């Protein structure tokens, strides 16, 4: 059964979209990852223009983050003060990102930049995940619980505008979370990802937040950043396909539930290696498309279309 997507302006099989949503949702439930970094390239592969794929995916992430954050909120794992500081940076970042998106689109370089960002980030994340998982696989039996020092002093502790974050047990400059939020906001606008794969490690290793509040707080910030991105993309570029987003999230929600349940039984390093290989595979495909000589060096561009 085909459906004509009103903004993407292509006709796609509904079950393919539901399946994609379900599969990516399953993985995100299984591994606790956002899934945007897999869904956006998949949408591009099936013929959705990168501009629409990125903006629509931001819309879908709003939904998955809302359902995620509610669970963490109930357990009290959200540092709202930190969330708002991250959000301040995130809002600036998404404003800048959507502006950059519009400029790049006009210059005919948007697709290239989206692909390049994906190659770089998927390469790094997939590579690190692969290394980490394979290392964990080898020393599974050993007790390798390295204790982190409660208090580490870096150059960053000399920065001004210090704020006390009670829930995270931190007293640090607000500049750092604002900066992290900014980067995530830009990535959400340009790549259509929640940025969790950047933010979660940054919050743990850079800010030194306790792991228990990291996921809930990052989800809290992601909701607002992706909501801002969705709004800005819709009003400035008309690239949000709400019909596509709804179909994807229907599949995604169901997939995520199955994934979470499967995760409690199946969690293992082998699975993480599998995910890493998939991420690297998507990265490789995008890189291949950028590097291989195109069949036709000429293409009809989007600039000046509307």
């Amino acid at each position: 059964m085909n459906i004509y997507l009103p903004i993407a302006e292509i006709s796609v099989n509904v079950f393919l979209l539901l399946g994609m949503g379900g599969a990516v949702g399953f993985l995100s439930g299984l591994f606790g990852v956002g899934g945007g970094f897999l869904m956006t390239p998949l949408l591009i592969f099936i013929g959705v223009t990168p501009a629409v794929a990125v903006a629509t995916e931001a819309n879908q992430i709003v939904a998955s983050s809302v359902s995620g954050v509610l669970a963490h909120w109930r357990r009290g794992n959200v540092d709202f003060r930190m969330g708002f500081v991250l959000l301040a940076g995130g809002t600036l970042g998404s404003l800048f990102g959507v502006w950059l998106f519009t400029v790049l689109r006009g210059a005919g370089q948007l697709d290239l930049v989206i692909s390049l960002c994906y190659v770089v980030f998927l390469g790094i994340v997939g590579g690190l995940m692969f290394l980490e998982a394979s290392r964990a696989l080898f020393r599974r039996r050993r007790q390798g619980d390295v204790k982190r020092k409660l208090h580490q002093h870096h150059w960053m502790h000399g920065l001004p505008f210090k704020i006390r974050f009670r829930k995270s047990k931190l007293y640090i400059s607000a500049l750092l979370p604002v900066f992290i939020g900014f980067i995530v906001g830009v990535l959400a606008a340009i790549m259509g990802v929640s940025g969790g794969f950047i933010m979660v490690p940054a919050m743990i290793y850079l800010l030194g937040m306790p792991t228990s509040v990291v996921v809930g707080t990052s989800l809290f910030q992601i909701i607002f950043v992706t909501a801002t991105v969705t709004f800005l993309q819709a009003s400035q570029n008309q690239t949000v396909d709400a019909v596509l987003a709804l179909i994807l999230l229907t599949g995604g929600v169901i997939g995520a539930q199955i994934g979470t349940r499967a995760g409690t039984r199946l969690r293992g390093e082998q699975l993480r290696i599998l995910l890493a290989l998939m991420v690297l595979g998507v990265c490789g495909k995008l890189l291949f498309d950028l590097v291989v000589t195109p069949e036709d060096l000429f293409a009809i561009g989007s600039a000046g279309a509307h």
Partner: protein
Amino acid sequence: MNLRAVFLSIAVLFLAMPGAAQTPLIADLSEHQIQITTGFVGTDVLLFGTVEPESNVVVVVRGPEEETTVWRKGRYAGVWVNDRRVIFERVPSFYAVRSSAPLDEIASEVTRMRHGMGAHFLRLRSLDDRISEADLKVFRAALIRNKQRQGLFATGASDISFLGGQLFRTRLHFPANVPTGFYDVEVFMLQDGRVTHAQTTPLIVRKAGLGADVFFFAYNYSALYGIIAVLLAVAAGALAAFVFRKG
């Protein structure tokens, strides 16, 4: 009085012509409106009509004209990057030519050029006057090639079939990515390589149903559309969290 005389003389003329007791060319479409609904996967429209015996038929379909950008890629540090563009003005967004026999056999070059029969006779002009004639030629060919690949330029099919020498029919195909707007379907009757009669029939391609409403809303009330898209997502997320809470 005068009008009646003219009418009478035309009628007499028609009756006097053997085997042509009607207008020499009549053509029509099976439908004049294509609706892009939610389940749209492309459609065929039947074109049919009559011509005088011993004549050929050419059909030219043109979609609304629009500015179109053609990019050329160059290699930088191993990566293919868009590096040169030419903007063509007034390019038909959709273009199709059908004929009852190969075009070069039934229409002279002048005729083909005058009526734009064949993509190479389209007047594709660039606003940029710094571009050389040779480059323009390459970009023009690239534009046609890309449009053909997208299925939006369909030329070279000589599949107009005749029934009994005067009655003709053909199927015009419009793919799923057909642009919306007002189309002109020109039907030409040719004799000895020249156009003797022509008729233009309009065709409208428009979005319909839910998809059309969403599209209209997204482009005309963009900010409100954005807010609703966000609220829908929040509601869907909250609903999902509620439904699967106990599980």
